[in-house]
């Protein structure tokens, strides 16, 4: 925002329309949306499986603790874990390849956006469990029983009672997952070395000057773009959160 002469300039914001930035923004958006939705669905299923179990049981403790740890897990080690599993030398890939199911026949997608999405799920799903489980715990058993005594079956219960009650929490959690994925830097950096397809990496690149030019002002512009998007998402999340607490606490 401040150029070489020290006066304010909006030139850097103009640079946001550079073609590769637009492409990167779209990439980051789509990978965030995809991992948010898939992570939300699987995370919700896992959270549901936990919530209907013994509230003091060992299984619940273990899964919650594991979620707490894995939601923070990222970066190089996560990338490496996946490389060791389904990378070109990973044992899962080798096993499949030996059984004539070479899933890298066209390209090694692990090191491209699809691979990144898969790796992101590794921390998106636990994050969903942590954020969504309190809402599930807030569902009172009396609502199910009242529905039944009034003539409703399982489908009616989910369609008219539990579904609408959980919808704000689910939506809010999905948004949080989106913001989380959008902001991720370390994992993307570790997995994808060429091209920097993710916005966060563009900032890193512009700051370090390793790839392309050293443009701190431009880095700030990208940063502002990211903050705007993430802030909008976070505001929407907290509005939904308020509705949830009103019904489910």
């Amino acid at each position, binding site marked *: 925002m401040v150029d070489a002469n020290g006066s304010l300039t909006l030139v850097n914001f103009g640079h946001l329309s550079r073609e590769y930035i637009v492409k990167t923004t779209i990439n980051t958006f789509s990978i965030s949306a995809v991992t948010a939705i898939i992570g939300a669905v699987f995370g919700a299923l896992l959270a549901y499986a936990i919530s209907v179990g013994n509230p003091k049981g060992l299984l619940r403790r273990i899964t919650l603790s594991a979620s707490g740890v894995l939601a923070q897990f990222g970066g190089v080690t996560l990338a490496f874990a996946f490389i060791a599993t389904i990378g070109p030398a990973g044992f899962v890939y080798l096993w499949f390849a030996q059984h004539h199911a070479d899933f890298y026949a066209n390209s090694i997608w692990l090191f491209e956006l699809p691979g990144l999405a898969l790796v992101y799920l590794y921390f998106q799903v636990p994050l969903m469990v942590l954020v969504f489980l309190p809402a599930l715990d807030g569902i*009172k058993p*009396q*609502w199910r*029983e*009242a*529905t*039944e*005594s*009034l*003539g*409703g*079956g399982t489908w*009616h219960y989910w369609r*008219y*009672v539990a579904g*609408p*009650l959980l919808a704000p929490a689910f939506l809010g959690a999905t948004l949080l997952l989106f913001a989380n994925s959008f902001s991720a830097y370390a994992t993307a950096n570790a997995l994808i070395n060429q091209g920097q397809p993710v916005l966060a990496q563009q900032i890193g690149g512009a700051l370090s000057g390793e790839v392309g030019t050293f443009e701190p002002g431009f880095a700030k512009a990208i940063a502002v773009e990211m903050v705007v998007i993430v802030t909008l998402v976070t505001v929407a999340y907290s509005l939904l959160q308020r509705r949830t607490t*009103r*019904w*489910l606490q």
Partner: protein
Amino acid sequence: MTERSGVEVRLENLQRRYGAVVALDGLSLTIAPGELVALLGPSGCGKTTALRLLAGLEDADGGRVVVGGNDVTGLPANRRNVGMVFQAYSLFPHMVAWENVAFGLQMRKVGAAERKKRALETLELVGLDRYANRYASQMSGGQQQRVALARALAIRPQVLLLDEPLSALDAKVRGRLRDEIRRIQLEVGITTLFVTHDQEEALAIADRVGVMQSGKLEQLDSPVAVYSRPATPFVADFVGLTNRIPGEVKFGGVEVRGTQLPLVQKDVPAGAAIALVRPEAVTITGDGDASSGPLVGTVIAVAFLGATSRVTVDLGDITVLAQLPTSDAAEHPAGTKVKLALRPDPVLVDRHE
């Protein structure tokens, strides 16, 4: 007097176990059409289990449930056409009052306009038509329970089930709502099962009261009978207040501190026993200053209960409660000596302490 309608409900030899714990041990009970039966007992006696088996929310391990002549034992809860009011938290928080009430009608595929009309009518029945567009969080506990009642009644069920509906409410609201529920039940004429641990509630509104303990029905009788002619020591103890006074069984009766009282139970073996005497059966015959004897003592406290008062008298080795008209009790304030007498009503005896 409104015509009594409703259907007959029969619980036949119901059994329910949770692992090693026996919740219901062969419970049999018939509720006449339009009758309100209250199941009364301490926590864990099985009264709520019985209700839930009738509702279909739990499966019986043995026995049958018959509603209106039909065996519904194998039917799932959502096909039983019962209306249920829970203790708390049962209103759907994301729906306003009339939507809650209309929910059962929605399940029965009643059209939207008709649904709303009937919901508002039922809300009017419970006196809450002005609150039709409020959410549960905007209503008091008493109002929420009235909406819950309307919701249960809107579907015109064959049976109305109430699971301790007043336990979570303030004392004052409890009294008023209790009478409301009875008034509505009589007006609609629906067969009702009301579960509670509060004996005052049960005695006040029921046609018959079933006192339960440990999965068994101890006595099923009118409120007056349960109170004044308890069938077992447990009932005598649980319903109303009871003085437990040691005495001796002989000559076909029990001698209690110099007074011979007839026995309710037959064939009681002679020997030491505890007589269960109601406070109303204990009277004050005069000042105790000049006399002595097993029924002479000092007044410790007088509890003013309105028309009557309860006087606590210390007889030296035990404490006894007497219930008298307040005007009589006023003559013997705390600290004075009094002489008591026991009315010759038949009493129950208990062998254990």
